[in-house]
């Protein structure tokens, strides 16, 4: 079920390059990037699927730092109200350097649950929950071998984050949302939001009493797959359309609009916070997988941003989603140079930010604050990408013929 290979191999006019041949497009690993990017020469037209220092957004400790800094800046420039729009990530402290700040916060709110997450690992590995300082004291001791010096830092960085104890539950189960955001440049910031995504359910019923049961609390599919309850036929995902419908029938469309608009805010603010830090190389683009958690008050929280969201398909439906996602990504990256650059929608992607907000209305000026401004996002809405692509490419062809 390798979606990436299938999509690339099936793309008309594209040829796979083996070994040391010259390439125009590379969907690379972050590890390759780290080792080779700096000394690889790329022609203007070449495209690569990561930004050099993506970790500013996708490693939890850097992201938190950048967000905090951005928030302070917003408060200075635009006031407390505007800065409060950045309050979508739970209180987080980098370990071990912010350990003392963490302890201060910990003591202010006794009895709440915290979650410890490794900065750079994925798929739910290395994560655990705790309520007592004693738990991390033990962990601190464990992570140092007997040979280490006392003040040597542990090999891996962690963050301690306030655990969201009142997640929204469906059928008694906790879930999170996986949303795809494509960034084609940071300076200026151009970001696209994919209409499809999915809701990942935990296989077991949510209860705070079993913190040790990581299967309850972690909704990553990878963790769920190892849960004794897991039956592969069940899958444990809903498409976002299903989720949006469910919420609409329960809370009404206005509430759902507000929730999704809050999520738009998360995507944009998080990207803005790293805009000046990320090396905006014109060769780079990146497809991010955002993990969002909704709490019982229907407030969305940002859990993390993934630079390499999983592209393996767990079911036929999943395969369909991911292949379409990748196809549309390649359409937006536009190696074939078909697009004019003025498109607001390509397949399942809607242009969410173009050096400024993008309005849904055709031809309307993109000015927020005007009464009728609605952002050009359609997360969880109908994705009639086939039709749209047909019409788009047809009209592009006609335009080209007319101008030649």
């Amino acid at each position, binding site marked *: 079920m390798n979606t990436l290979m299938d999509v690339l191999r099936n793309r008309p006019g594209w040829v796979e390059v083996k070994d040391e041949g010259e390439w125009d497009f590379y969907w690379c690993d972050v590890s390759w990037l780290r080792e080779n990017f700096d000394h690889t020469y790329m022609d203007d037209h070449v495209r690569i699927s990561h930004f050099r220092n993506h970790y500013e957004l996708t490693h939890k400790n850097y992201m938190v730092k950048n967000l905090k800094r951005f928030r302070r800046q917003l408060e200075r420039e635009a006031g407390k109200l505007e800065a409060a729009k950045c309050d979508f990530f739970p209180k987080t402290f980098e370990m071990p350097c912010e350990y003392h700040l963490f302890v201060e916060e910990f003591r202010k709110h006794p009895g709440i649950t915290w979650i410890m997450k490794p900065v750079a690992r994925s798929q739910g590995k290395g994560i655990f929950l705790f309520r007592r300082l004693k738990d991390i004291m033990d962990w601190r001791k464990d992570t140092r071998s007997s040979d280490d010096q006392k003040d040597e830092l542990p090999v891996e960085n962690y963050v301690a984050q306030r655990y969201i104890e009142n997640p929204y539950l*469906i*059928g*008694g*189960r906790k879930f999170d949302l996986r949303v795809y955001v494509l960034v084609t440049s940071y300076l200026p910031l151009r970001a696209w939001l994919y209409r499809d995504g999915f809701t990942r*359910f935990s296989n*077991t*019923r949510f209860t705070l009493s079993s913190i040790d049961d990581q299967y309850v609390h972690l909704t990553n599919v990878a963790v769920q797959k190892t849960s004794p*309850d897991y*039956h592969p*036929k*069940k*899958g*444990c*995902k*809903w498409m976002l359309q*299903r989720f949006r*419908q*469910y919420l*609409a*029938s*329960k809370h*009404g*469309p206005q509430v759902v609009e507000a929730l999704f608009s809050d999520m738009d805010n998360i995507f944009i603010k998080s990207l803005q916070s790293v805009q000046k830090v990320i090396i905006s190389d014109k060769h780079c683009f990146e497809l991010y997988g955002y993990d969002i958690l909704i709490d019982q008050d229907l407030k969305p929280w940002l859990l993390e941003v993934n630079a390499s969201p999983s592209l393996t398909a767990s*079911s036929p*439906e999943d395969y*369909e989603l991911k292949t379409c996602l990748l196809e549309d990504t390649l359409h937006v990256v536009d190696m074939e140079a078909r697009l004019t650059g003025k498109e607001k929608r390509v397949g399942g992607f809607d242009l969410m930010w173009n050096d400024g907000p993008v309005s849904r209305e055709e031809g309307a000026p993109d000015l927020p604050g005007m009464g009728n401004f609605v952002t050009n996002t359609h997360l969880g*809405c*109908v994705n*009639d990408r*086939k039709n749209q692509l047909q019409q788009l490419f047809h009209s592009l062809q006609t335009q080209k013929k007319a101008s030649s």
Partner: protein
Amino acid sequence: MLQEESDLSLMIAQIVQKLKGSNLYAQLERQAWASLQKPEIRLESLKEDIKEFFKISGWEKKLQNAVYSELNVYPLPSHPAAPPEHLKEPLVYMRKAQGSWEKRILKSLNSMCTELSIPLARKRPVGQQKELLNKWNEMGTDEPDLSLFRPVYAPKDFLEVLINLRNPNYENGDSLSFRTHLGLIQVPLKVKDIPDLKECFIELGLNTGQLGIDDSTQVPPELFENEHVRIGQKVLAEQDSAAAQQYIRQGSPTALRAELWALILNISSQPEDILYYEQLKANVIQHDLLVDSLIYKDVKLTASNDDYYFVFEDYLYQVLLCFSRDTSVLGHFAYNSASPPKSYIRGKLGLEEYAVFYPPNGVIPFHGFSMYVAPLCFLYHEPYKLYQTFREMYVRFFFRLHSISSHPSGIVSLCLLFETLLQTYLPQLFYHLREIGAQPLRISFKWMVRAFSGYLATDQLLLLWDRILGYNSLEILAVLAAAVFAFRAVNLMEVTSLAAAEVRINFTRMGWK
């Protein structure tokens, strides 16, 4: 004229009789007594004043809704000399067929019982009761060993019975003519043809706006959607059942659906209803029934494996286990051709004083039964609300899908309607499929028995069920099934086997692509 009048007064008498025993009657009485305190009520014009009071306070509307509900559910009274069986099913051969089918089911259930040495019912020991109560909200986490249980029957077994139905008074003759019905159902029931259907389902015509079509992204909402939503809100504000039923023929907006259905089904969640549900829950805790295992097995096999409904597994147990203990469901057997199976207290076989209905609600679940409940989980989240809605849907509609009767919404008529539509309007396709041994009904039967639950994406399914409620009929299921075949007609002409036909018809849950 006289006949109509006497029919009407008979009907009125029946409805009054029914409503007298209901909660609404008690409430109206209380309200009437309380109103005597009001200054507007004068002794000289007591009757008119109280009527006026009812009108203003909305109680008249509630009464209207209740009457409307009765009219919808109960068949019109027939000849005063007709015995009660005729209300269940007027045709003798159908009654007989249903009777023998029931005998078979019961035999199957009893033999499973004996084989596994499990009693049909037993009282739970106190320890187990406590455990179950603790786990009530997450019964899905239980993984009891259900390997020895089998569903009592599956839709395809039922289809075989229907195929063999014959009217002994009807002689078809051996010669084939243009009238010969080529399908599997060989009973001469009257079904509607397209002109009749067009008239009946007039609101589904091309000139009328529909939700699900005319609210798609390409259509500006000012053309239909906005106004339709506004009317829906008005209907809800008026709390008028009849208006809601008319309104919903064009589909219900997602946000209004839960309330609209409750209004049409005349469900209001009074404290008595919540209490009743809690009592049923207590019954479940105290006694363990064999059918419970059948329910568990069914949920695990169907809903839990479903991509969309697996999330609601726990709710399904909470509804279905209580449903099987609900003796108020027995009421619907007055107009259902089926009869509740009887069982006898141990050692008292045949003695009527020791007969009980088994299960208490008289409904034995079959493979796929839980799928009737699953879509409702999208609308209702309090268990008692979910329960009431399901129960009402069952005693109004779903029971017809698995009992043998001549009713126009009964499964036999639906099958015949489906086959007739196909044979009349797609004769080439029908003939071709028949020739390759792929009788269309063999493919579509399971869709209709389940009212398409599990075969359509939930949003589409709910739009379909909107119309079932709106027209108070299940005929639309047969029409949809035929439409699916019409849609795939070109593809289906190429297949050469039943298996290939199933694949080609490509009725996947991803909706239409």
